[in-house]
């Protein structure tokens, strides 16, 4: 459909639940009316990181007030596993403890307080074993969850040896807790025939369905997983929401009662995985302009005690360690390290951010060593024309708009004048120093596991001309539901308000992929359009018959059907169609074309296209304390032709702040016993309203739309903007370089403490 006929798509429509959310009517799972007889489940946790349970006395737990039953590993009727792929995540430990906090039993009680209280009364004896907590411990002991992997091209050893300049560096990258405002929660209602209705706050209803069915030992058809909305997900509810649904379902099967489980925030942080910590080491050769001639890069990922999604996450880190730059001779090595900590998982960017940050550190390091502005180094390294347009995994960068986008942002942010002002400011000030940085993002869109790039939808047209819309995507605040509804409304030429968005459920659309990889609107928007267009086609054919016209002459616009000079209200046409026995319900199915990946050679076209963006960040650091302020941020981001510019800008703003938080204030600390010491917002600092830049300009890139054939030529927007936050980290690095005159040992997150230590390490004001 040409853009001129779009009435809802491209409009800045409000989030589908906006009014319900501001009036308190929107129901999250814990807000649903509780069914009669509801029991509350709570897990009992291991208090060591590594070892065996020698004895477990649960008599005090069982005798506690309100306790109805205990769930022990022997009570699991089917498979004791809630892993997404590898079968290595027990729902309840079978005696071997692999991280501090691991579930060793669960309690069912009349109230949540009673269950929580009782769960702490277990007397457990352990035989402790050696625990690997840090990246270094795991790496030096070759402790891995999956085999090492590498990709690249050229003879890097030879090319490094003959490079004009060469340097080595190392960067530690911290993890990140999702801190979705709604923690993990599930409520399970048993039905007849052993059926279970599972309300689960999950980005992956299909996986939760499989896990619940498998742990109960029933067919998948016996389990329906339903989710209307989540209070945030960010990847944390992709593979790690199933465990809680499983525990509740086992409890429901044992007792015949409905069962709810809602983790306390501290336990949510202790018991569920986070963004992977990484350590990057590089050896890079470059010419006198800073253009990379060869690079050898090693990425160590701290995966935690099980594989979870770590294979694909570490792959994506490797595939993004080029970011927007051409690396002519390159070797990328990846290790997937096993530590005795919670299993790290998907988090917005899925490894990509760690890869991008690694190469951006290289850019800053090269610039610092040559004494030139890092933006010049970044520019000479950008992907370009033939000969400089293939990634390390041999995919052509066919849609490279990074040079143009950076040029526009450089001008609109007044970068060059501000660079001069920063130099002048730093000349005049000894105790305050400024840093300025422009960093780009190029992010590959598609699941790297090719088979996951599929989606289904189900559209019904009812007799009054209202539409029921369902698809496999889940709503976690990102605005997927309203975007897909806009698409469907335009297929029928009707108002958005006539489209009812219904809860995501495995009973309507089966075998779905998670809402992840930024792919929600790309996949589900296309599937819903295919379903709607199928019905529209039937209606068009019927209307053509009514007016003795050709099907191609039928138009749907302004809630009417127009055939030549004849006009008919959409509802009237629908009524006539039902009377004439026309089916007004259809599924839609979409799979992303063109993509493929060869694991053996580490080459292929894993992405349908790339999304681009760039950010300029200016910071001021206090060299006495290490404290800093983000003075100004300018963002230009590419969303193709936007389906909904208001929603997209919200994703960019929120993604940037989340990325900035990851690299500045959000610090996860484990002690040597493997205990997470930052398990509440009191100690784990996510950005608040005062942590944002003083000046914050966000614009959408005005280009020619997505060159790949996506839904109305839009681009995915969920993850890419998170990496815009790297501009703040880079600006902080620049400020320290401006103070000390040399490249600092500044790791992420660059907390004020870390900045102060970096200044001291550079002998500044010592």
């Amino acid at each position: 459909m040409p853009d001129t006929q779009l009435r809802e798509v491209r409009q800045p429509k409000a989030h589908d639940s906006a009014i319900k959310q501001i009036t308190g009517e929107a129901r999250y799972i814990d807000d649903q009316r509780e069914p009669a007889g509801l029991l509350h489940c709570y897990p009992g946790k291991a208090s060591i990181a590594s070892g065996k349970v020698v004895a477990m006395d649960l008599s005090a737990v069982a005798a506690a007030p309100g306790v109805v039953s205990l769930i022990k590993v022997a009570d699991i009727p089917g498979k004791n596993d809630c892993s997404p792929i590898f079968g290595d995540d027990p729902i309840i430990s079978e005696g071997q403890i692999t991280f501090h906090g691991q579930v060793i039993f669960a309690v069912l009680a009349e109230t949540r307080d009673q269950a929580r209280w009782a769960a702490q009364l277990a007397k457990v004896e352990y035989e402790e074993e050696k625990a690997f907590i840090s990246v270094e411990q795991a790496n030096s002991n070759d402790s891995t969850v999956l085999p090492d992997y590498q990709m690249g091209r050229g003879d890097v050893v030879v090319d490094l040896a003959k490079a004009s300049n060469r340097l080595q560096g190392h960067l530690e990258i911290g993890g990140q807790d999702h801190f979705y405002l709604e923690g993990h929660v599930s409520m399970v209602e048993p039905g007849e025939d052993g059926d279970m209705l599972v309300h689960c706050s999950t980005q992956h209803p299909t996986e939760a369905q499989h896990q619940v069915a498998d742990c109960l030992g029933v067919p998948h058809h016996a389990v329906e997983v339903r989710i209307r909305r989540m209070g945030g997900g960010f990847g944390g509810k992709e593979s790690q929401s199933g465990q809680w649904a499983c525990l509740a379902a086992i409890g429901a099967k044992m007792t015949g009662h409905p069962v709810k489980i809602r983790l306390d925030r501290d336990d949510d942080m202790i018991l569920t995985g986070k963004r992977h910590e990484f350590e990057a080491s590089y050896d890079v050769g470059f010419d006198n302009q800073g253009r990379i001639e060869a690079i050898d890069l090693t990425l160590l990922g701290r995966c935690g005690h099980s594989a979870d999604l770590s294979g694909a996450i570490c792959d994506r880190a490797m595939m993004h360690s080029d970011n927007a730059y051409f690396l002519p001779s390159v070797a990328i090595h990846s290790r997937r390290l096993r530590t005795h900590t919670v299993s790290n998982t998907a988090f917005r960017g899925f490894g990509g951010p760690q890869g991008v940050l690694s190469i951006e550190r290289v850019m800053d390091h090269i610039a610092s060593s040559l004494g030139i502005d890092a933006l010049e180094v970044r520019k000479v390294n950008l992907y370009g024309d033939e000969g400089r347009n293939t990634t390390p995994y041999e995919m052509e960068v066919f849609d490279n708009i990074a040079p143009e986008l950076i040029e526009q942002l450089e001008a609109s942010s007044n970068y060059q004048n501000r660079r001069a002002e920063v130099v002048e400011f730093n000349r005049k000030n000894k105790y305050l120093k400024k840093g300025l940085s422009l960093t780009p993002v190029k992010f590959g869109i598609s699941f790297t596991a090719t088979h996951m790039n599929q989606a289904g939808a189900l559209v019904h047209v009812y007799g009054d001309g209202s539409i029921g819309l369902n698809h496999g995507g889940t709503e976690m605040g990102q605005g997927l539901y309203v975007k897909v509804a806009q698409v469907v409304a335009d297929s029928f030429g009707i108002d958005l308000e006539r489209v009812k968005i219904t809860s995501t459920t495995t009973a309507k659309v089966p075998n779905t992929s998670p809402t992840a990889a930024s792919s929600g609107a790309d996949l589900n928007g296309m599937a819903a359009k295919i379903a709607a267009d199928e019905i529209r086609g039937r209606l068009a054919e019927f209307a053509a018959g009514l007016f003795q016209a050709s099907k191609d002459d039928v138009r749907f616009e302004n809630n009417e059907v127009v055939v030549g000079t004849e006009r008919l209200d959409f509802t009237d046409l629908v009524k006539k169609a039902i009377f004439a026995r026309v089916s007004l319900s259809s599924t839609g199915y979409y799979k992303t074309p063109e993509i493929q990946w060869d694991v053996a050679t580490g080459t292929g076209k894993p992405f349908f296209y790339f999304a681009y963006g760039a950010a300029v960040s200016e910071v001021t650091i206090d060299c006495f304390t290490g404290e800093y302020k983000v003075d100004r941020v300018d963002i230009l981001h590419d969303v193709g032709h936007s389906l909904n510019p208001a929603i997209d800008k919200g994703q960019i703003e929120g993604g940037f702040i989340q990325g900035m938080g990851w690299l500045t204030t959000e610090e996860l600390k484990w002690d040597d016993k493997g205990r997470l010491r930052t398990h509440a917002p009191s100690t784990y600092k996510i950005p608040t309203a005062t942590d944002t830049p003083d000046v914050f300009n966000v614009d959408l890139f005005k280009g020619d739309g997505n060159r790949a054939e996506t839904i109305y030529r839009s681009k995915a927007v969920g993850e890419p903007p998170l990496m815009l936050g790297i501009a703040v980290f880079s600006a902080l690095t620049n400020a320290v370089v401006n103070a000390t005159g040399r490249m600092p040992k500044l790791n992420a997150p660059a907390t004020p403490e870390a900045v102060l230590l970096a200044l001291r390490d550079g002998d500044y004001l010592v």
Partner: protein
Amino acid sequence: MPSISLTLNGRSVSGEVETKTLLVDYIRENQKLTGTHVGCDTSQCGSCVVHVDGKSVKSCTMLAVQVDGSEVTTIEGLATGEELHPMQEAFRQNHGLQCGFCTPGMVMSAVDLVAGNPDISETEIREGLEGNICRCTGYHNIVKSVQAGAKAMGG
């Protein structure tokens, strides 16, 4: 169990309540008003903010027995019938929400914060909202919403 009486969203309610019951649990479980959310369980995130005698309070920080004799307003009591409160309207118009979980607390905090101060500065708003965490929006549209809401509420 002690007995309490209060005005909840303009309606008189009374009944017995356990001394250890938190105000948020009383609101959500006893009164079935689930717009007030529990985000962090430890009085930090602000998802549970309600008004007690016109002042914003984190309802997981207070016991139900402490509101005996008070007027309590939750997010459900803010609109007048079908007509949204100006602050609610401002959040809708300015896209001041994404997942919506923090929104009720954010709106309740904002209403108290700007009361009597239609020209409140951006800095005052940001500092006033430090006790309300949002993980989705980056606060940009929330601050815009609160500024617009303050204007619409007037002096």
